[in-house]
């Protein structure tokens, strides 16, 4: 049977408007919400304007006040069951706003203060012949940015393969030593960064095996990066459904091919996350580099021969100086570090996007 529309119905159909019946509110609801918003707000404004209570304190008062007001509004409109709901929502919103404000204020101070230092020479020159009192027009952080890149690259080259191999051992090989390996990887993630530096210093540098250099710094960073990469990679490999492994094995695949061609590609995005988290874990670490990479005002490209400066060390050196220009330099270095991290992560995300072959 075919349905025919008479012109009247058709017109009515076309006239029908999009509506959202679930958004309809009663007046009682609107009024309750308005009161629940207005009263705490009025109290806060009154406190800020007419009392000597400090601003930060007022916001500490505001959250419980808002919870109470929202709870009352919920009780009036939805009954007892609404109270908990509204209290949790107010808390969740409050907590996220707090986090957001903290992060934005950190970024804001970093960007505003860092931008004062930023100039072409600051990005391209090193700090040879620059003292803390030298004006900002001279010298730059290129040598430190290069040092950070070099050391992070070295540590990633060491820690990422070992970390992923460890994760593969735990989730794919499932050998007898898995509980022990996991235990040690977990304890390793609790090693303070300064200990990682001390470890490289005492075992390799003081014994004369290697110089204070980018390589030594990379080794110390690798010690810190390894557990993060291994544990995150383990988590993401665990998420790969066993169906895929069995499916590959049922096709006559060896275990190695299953891991390389099915499991790892399926976990690609997660593996990239593991690498990003590993880099993020170390990139701002200062303590291990003090002992392993040292500092150097000149640009160093040989990772094995000489001490080398890095952005965290440059910040550390400059921020405690009694000269405003030196402090501004530190902010500038911090800004470069942050932008570098942002660029690295964006590139990694782009490379790690899921593409099917």
């Amino acid at each position, binding site marked *: 049977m075919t349905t025919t529309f008479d012109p009247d119905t058709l017109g009515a159909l076309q006239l029908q408007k999009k509506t959202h019946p679930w958004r309809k509110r009663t007046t009682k609801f609107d009024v309750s919400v308005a009161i629940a918003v207005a009263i705490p707000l009025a109290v806060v404004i009154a406190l800020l304007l007419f009392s000597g209570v400090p601003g930060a304190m007022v916001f500490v008062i505001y959250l419980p006040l808002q919870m109470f007001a929202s709870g009352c509004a919920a009780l009036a409109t939805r009954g007892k069951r609404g109270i908990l709901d509204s209290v949790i929502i107010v808390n969740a919103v409050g907590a996220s706003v707090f986090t957001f404000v903290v992060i934005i204020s950190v970024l804001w101070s970093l960007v505003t203060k860092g931008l004062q230092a930023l100039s072409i020479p600051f990005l391209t020159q090193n700090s040879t012949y620059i003292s803390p009192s030298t004006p900002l027009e001279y010298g730059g952080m290129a040598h430190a940015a290069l040092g950070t890149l070099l050391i992070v690259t070295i540590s990633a080259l060491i820690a990422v393969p070992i970390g992923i191999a460890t994760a593969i051992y735990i989730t794919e090989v499932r050998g007898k030593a898995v509980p022990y390996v996991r235990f040690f990887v977990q304890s390793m993630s609790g090693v303070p960064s300064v200990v990682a530096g001390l470890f490289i210093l005492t075992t390799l540098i003081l014994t004369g095996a290697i110089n204070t250099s980018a390589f030594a710094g990379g080794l110390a960073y690798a010690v810190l990066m390894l557990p993060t990469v291994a544990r995150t990679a383990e988590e993401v490999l665990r998420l790969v459904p066993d169906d*895929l492994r069995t499916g590959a094995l049922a*096709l*006559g695949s*060896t275990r190695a091919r299953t891991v390389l061609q099915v499991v790892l590609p399926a976990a690609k995005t997660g593996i990239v996350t593991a690498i990003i988290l590993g880099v993020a874990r170390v990139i701002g670490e200062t303590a291990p580099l003090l002992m392993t990479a040292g500092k150097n005002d000149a640009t160093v490209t040989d990772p094995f021969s000489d001490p080398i400066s890095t952005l965290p060390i440059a910040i550390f050196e400059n921020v405690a100086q009694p000269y405003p220009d030196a402090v501004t330099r530190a902010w500038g270095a911090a800004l470069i570090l942050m932008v570098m991290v942002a660029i690295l992560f964006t590139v990694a995300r782009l490379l790690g996007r899921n593409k099917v072959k």
Partner: protein
Amino acid sequence: MSTAEFEQDVVALEQEFEPAKVQGRAELEARDISVWFNSRKVLEGVNLAFPKNTVTALIGPSGCGKSTFIRTLNRLHELLPGAALAGEVLYEGEDIYGPTKDPVHIRLSIGMVFQKPNPFPSMTIRGNVLSGLKLSGMKRSNHDEIVEQTLTSAGLWNEVKDRLGHAAGELSGGQQQRLVIARALAVQPHVLLMDEPCSALDPASTLKIEETIRELSKDITIVIVTHNMQQAVRVADYTAFFLAAENEPGHVVEQGRTTEIFGNPQDQRTLDYVNGRFG
């Protein structure tokens, strides 16, 4: 003796000697297979022969060990934690659990299709079909031909021929299942194990796969686990009925020609099950 009587006798004789005849030309044969998971015995003394180029259906209620059994036939069982096994599985006359046997080789000849479609998400449709060749290290040059041929066999070619380069995850569940069947066929197995391949499919896809199974059985031996009685009747030459009493390992109650199992079962439990009275 009239002609009709004579024919009846021949049929009777055939049935009487069927097991021997079957064993003589069986491509795959399970002998006294018992299976454990840790200390729990889930299968006991299963003897089943799968004659070359036939379809055998394994039927029985859930939890009676059919899927576990089918996984012993290509050594996937041993991958599960706590797995243990007694008995032997003969493939072309040799025990696949023999000390010199490589499970990778066994699984290449005895392929498997699972209940849940499991296409590889990192590969395209085409990549999935060819993945078996890549994973098993088989060198074949006529890739385009293999893709078209196996996808046609699996009844999927017309639906995907214009988007072979798309991600396999874009396909519907039924299409994914036919894709993994094509994938399993691409390595040219001699035996194909199918663990409830149609349980997630609509009737139209199911019919396509059943046609595929009939077509494939000209060249390969198929063992199919199914909960669908009509499917067993439609596709299988032989049927084995598995059953497990409460807290007891599963075993084969009755086996034989599908027509016999469904038309003239010897065991009351088989009769009840195939007529839908339990399970």
